């Protein structure tokens, strides 16, 4: 069986323009991902709760209302509170460059401005969505040790060569 990249696409807050979110959602679907679309007017709490229940790798938020400096920090805080820090948060919309920098400093993984080709978003997610560790399918300790040893050997070899 296959495991898929799962992405939640949501529109938090009052802004009612969901065209962008839908375009991105469709692009991710066409790239083979499973997109959970939550629709308009979501609260931060419901987005985080949905992300936890759906066990997504990435939350993608579309914000065109200017509330990004409130919403992103709140989402990050709620994720920490739900012990779900490993879920990545990305976003798009009308966000000034200064704010983008600030947001990325506090833990938003990536922000995309207007005009970004959807392929860029797809590629970024594919490159960065690491499967969170599944607690029940970890390799045996002996196997893990072996792998570690091999990796160490390789590194030694490389540094010698």
């Amino acid at each position, binding site marked *: *069986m*296959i*495991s*898929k990249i*799962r992405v939640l696409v949501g529109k938090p807050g009052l802004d009612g323009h969901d065209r962008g979110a839908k375009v991105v*959602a*469709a692009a*991710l*679907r*066409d*790239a*083979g*991902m*499973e*997109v*959970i*679309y*939550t*629709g308009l*007017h*979501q*609260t931060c*709490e*419901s987005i985080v*709760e*949905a992300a*936890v*229940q*759906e*066990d997504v790798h990435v939350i993608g938020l579309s914000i065109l209302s200017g509330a990004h400096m409130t919403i992103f920090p709140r989402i990050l805080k709620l994720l920490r509170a*739900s*012990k*779900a820090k490993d879920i990545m948060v990305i976003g798009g919309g009308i966000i000034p460059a200064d704010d983008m920098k600030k947001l990325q400093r506090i833990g938003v993984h990536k922000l995309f401005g207007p005009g970004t080709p959807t392929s860029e978003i797809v590629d970024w997610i594919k490159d960065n969505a690491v499967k*969170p560790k*599944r*607690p*029940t*399918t*970890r*390799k*045996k*300790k002996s196997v893990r040790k072996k792998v570690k040893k091999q990796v160490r050997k390789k590194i030694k070899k490389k540094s010698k060569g």
Partner: protein
Amino acid sequence: MKGRQRETVKGIRALLAGEKRTIARIISAVESEDSEEILEHIFPHSGSAYHVGITGPPGAGKSTLVSAIAKRLLGKRKKVGIIAVDPSSPFSGGALLGDRVRMTDLALDENVFIRSMASRGSLGGLAQATKDVALVLDAAGMDYILIETIGVGQVELDIAQVCDTTVVVLVPESGDSIQAMKAGLLEIADIMVVNKGDREGCERLLTELKFAFEMREQKVGWDYPILKTTATEDEGVEELVVAIESHASYLSKTGRLEDERKKKLLLRIHELIEKRIRFHLKENIMPERDIIKLLDKMYERKLNPYRIAGQIARRIIRLADRRFV
């Protein structure tokens, strides 16, 4: 092995406690990996949830109805698990899972757990792992599990093999009594619902359905309710919940619940055996190279596929006999 087992046990304990993140993680594992080991641990803790299936054509209002039913059940202090299946693209393998859009009112209730699933190539209206995901939610202590299929046509009937009560949702536009008399969808219904009851043609469809159901041979004493709802206005939902509950008590009173569930377990065993054997065939026994060699001869009509398949099957059965007896 020990470390892994310990982690599994830890995971199971959190699952039983209803820890949402753990439930979600285990569902992902069940959905995407060979996870029979986990399921073996989970199985003893399941069996107490009542499974209700909601099926019907696309846009009939299944998600809205599920949301409305769940709200009623939550009002009765029940824990509700929802599994909503949407189709995967056969081309890209991706999926847009949009059932949550209709369920936003529920999102923050702590007694509800909603999970969207993509069908991942399965054709019966559910995903392959839906049964196992239901098992996980069952063990997590849900009283009810509502399973919503993808929008179905006439023959996607897997839902009836998973659920105790199957609700078939139609809309006034679904067609006339001839549609209702065809084999398939309506045959699996324990409860019929005509949703969007405020639309024109609703009463006509209700009458025609009643007619079609009267002609049907009655299954031991269960009087099929045919209900009208308008899910968006919450109309008729109470009656639907009552119908579900009375079907549940009918099943348990007559002993049919146990019988049906045993039948489902038998089916499950068949499925699991089949799955293993199919895997084994592909991996080990079926010499596909050898068959490909014969293709030319078959193409020229010097050999036929019936005989070849028969020969190979006989060889496999002989092998199996020798091993197991």
